[in-house]
């Protein structure tokens, strides 16, 4: 545990940490991915000077899935369309959802509860780490965030609270023992042409150790 380690409890009614291979007819991973956890941390506090690193994920609710089927759209508005319209001063900008329907099924998680153990790295060494640590803590205590944190998908918003490491509850009975979760997305390497990087996730008594992003255990 580093002295700037933070522990943040996240919970919500629904979550969908989509597996890349089952991204169209979504199937969620069993637990939150490091990149989704980073997303939550960044939604609460982010500055160009720091970079969040997730170290450990504690799972506190049994893994439960449910099925939903929703109407979505098939296309994105391409960047070129509006650009062209701006240049020409006329054109079509919209996307009509009822003409562009796609029904998609999803297997999402129900009633999730995690504790994220993370630290941040300073990108500017002249900064004092304590400053960012305290700022983050104050923001969490007050419930301030830049955007509503969510669990994998925007529509599955989550609640969060600051939690003392000593208060972390034991994992539920069903998660005890060792469980292989297979290759899991760690994060996208944005400096390297958006290459996804994966790690082998293993849950030990409800705790998943997340290897460092550029370590040997993370493959791309």
């Amino acid at each position, binding site marked *: 545990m580093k002295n700037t380690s933070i522990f943040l409890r996240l919970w919500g009614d629904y979550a969908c940490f989509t*597996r*890349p*291979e*089952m*991204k*169209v*007819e979504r*199937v969620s991973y*069993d637990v939150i991915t490091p990149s989704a956890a980073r997303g939550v941390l960044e939604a609460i506090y982010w500055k160009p000077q720091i970079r969040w690193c997730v170290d450990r994920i504690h799972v506190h609710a049994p893994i439960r*899935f449910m*099925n939903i089927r929703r109407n*979505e*759209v*098939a*296309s*994105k508005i*391409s960047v070129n369309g509006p650009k062209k319209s701006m240049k020409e001063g006329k054109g079509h900008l919209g996307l009509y959802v009822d003409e562009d329907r*796609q*029904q*998609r*099924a999803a*297997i999402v998680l129900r009633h999730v509860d995690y504790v994220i153990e993370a630290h941040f790295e300073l990108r500017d060494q002249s900064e004092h780490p304590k400053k960012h640590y305290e700022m983050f803590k104050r923001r969490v205590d007050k419930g301030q965030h830049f955007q509503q944190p969510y669990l994998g998908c925007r529509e599955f918003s989550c609640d969060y609270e600051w939690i003392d490491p000593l208060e972390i509850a034991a994992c539920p009975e069903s998660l005890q023992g060792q469980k292989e*979760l*297979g*290759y899991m997305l760690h994060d*996208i390497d944005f400096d390297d042409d*958006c*290459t*996804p*990087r*994966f790690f*082998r996730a293993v849950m030990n008594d409800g705790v998943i150790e997340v290897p460092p992003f550029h370590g040997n255990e993370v*493959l*791309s």
Partner: protein
Amino acid sequence: MILQSLNQFYERLAEDPEIEIAPYGYSSQKISFCIVINKKGKLIQFSDIRREAGKRMVAQEIQVCGGAKPSGSGLNPCFLWDNSSYLLGYKADDQKPERTRESFEASRDYHLGLEQEINHPSYSAVCNFLKSWNPELAANHPELAEVSTGFLVFQISGEEGYVHETAEIKAWWNQQLEAHQDSKDVVNAFCLVSGKRQRLARLHEPKIKGVRGAQSAGASIVSFNATAYESYHKEQSFNAPVSEQAAFQYCTALNYLLSRDNKRSFTIGDATVVFWTERASPMEHLFSAFMDPDLKAEDESQRENLGRLLKQVARGQYPTQEFGDPETPFYVLGLSPNAARISVRFWYMSSLGEIFAHLSQHMHDLEICGKPEKELAMPPLWQLLAETVRDTKDLPPLLAGSVMKAILSGQIYPQMLYSSILRRIRMDRQINYRRVSLLKACLNRQNRIQKHFQLTKEISVSLDPEYPDPAYHMGRLFAELEKSQEDALPGLNATIKDRFFGAASATPASVFPRLIRMNQHHLGKLEPAKKSYHEKRIQDICQKLNVFPSHLTLSQQGLFALGYYHQRQDIFTKKTKAKTDDNAA
């Protein structure tokens, strides 16, 4: 995890000498004719290699080089196998002779171009044949008229096997596959199934066939067929890095499971369910027999066999000797169609021992007296689900999946199962074996698992005169009132059950006083001995009841139906009761 376990399953199948499964770079195709030529490439005959199956002729599944024939308008000749327009420039009832000629030329040039590189006498014979073959002569061979649906392969007369099965030619093909890996326009990256750096698949081939309701030409689990699904400027399946080999292997394994001949899949609701274990186990064949037995089969021995197995399950003793290590992982995957895509309806990972225990628990929960003789100890899931709706077409797709999951995981049955059964009972007033056994299973299981849900006592298999909840005794009373009416007025079209069951089970206070008043008239019509017999039985039950509540909760309504059913069973088994009690003791 789904793709990884399927990939592992493929590797297991590939090692099994008894199972024929296509290796990477090959595929199983429906071959109906064989072009037999001599060593110089002269045509000997077109031989029909289809098998007779009933009245129809069925093409043989033969492993050939390369994947499925690509659809679309491009010219894409296959290596040493193809349809008749490519290999012979002939098509029965040809609408586009121009195109047929082009495809034959493309195929001929493709094969001739490789002649020097392969340098094998059998291959050269094929080339000679293609060089000398005149498509216009095809019309002289009437047997070709039937070739339109299937594919053709080559065979050298006097040699065993087909040309594409020759060891040297196969070796060349395999070498070709590997050489492909190094060329420049392929993307080599981490594969999330195998965990190795390999050549990535742009599309996942072969397509998955056999999911009910999906496109018959095959659909995909992994596909990115609209721009909304793509991220980070990645195209198609590069959004999810899976190697070509892993994609081939998981798709082939899934196709193997879905193939109807292998009896490894069944349908529940709108989902097609497949299942497999990590190591070979008889459970792989039994599971579908448990969930979806072939009841149409008139085979008595099969039925008996299943009955024997079910008894074993009911006893709850895991047969280690037969089934192997109870820790062996067991997977269940439910797939449902969504146009060209396939979505995962449910995915369940467990172990053999656990599945066995949960099936046993399921049977135990369902067990109730009065089982019809023909009924299996564990009615197949679809029969149970059929009780929740008027017509199986109305079955909500989500329900089937969640009931299945409840059975496999030992969790509570979905609330919807319980409430739809009650609704059906209110609608058509049929209180049959399957319905009450489901009601009992739902209530008992919920009572066992959910702490805040409390039945005062677990419901027993047969009549329990000491059951503490009054709703149960109201059900019993209702059964007795009905019986005395039946005795007093035999042959009635509509008894009190048909007219009052729904109201009595939901709002007893408004119905029971009236029923009891009517009962006085019914009793009056009976001869004294019978009258006192009925009076006594009704008296016994009434002792348990203080007051009729104005309404019953949903769980009490279930108890009401169960009380009714138990009492009804008791009325009709009365005479042999003493005997069975002795046996039980």
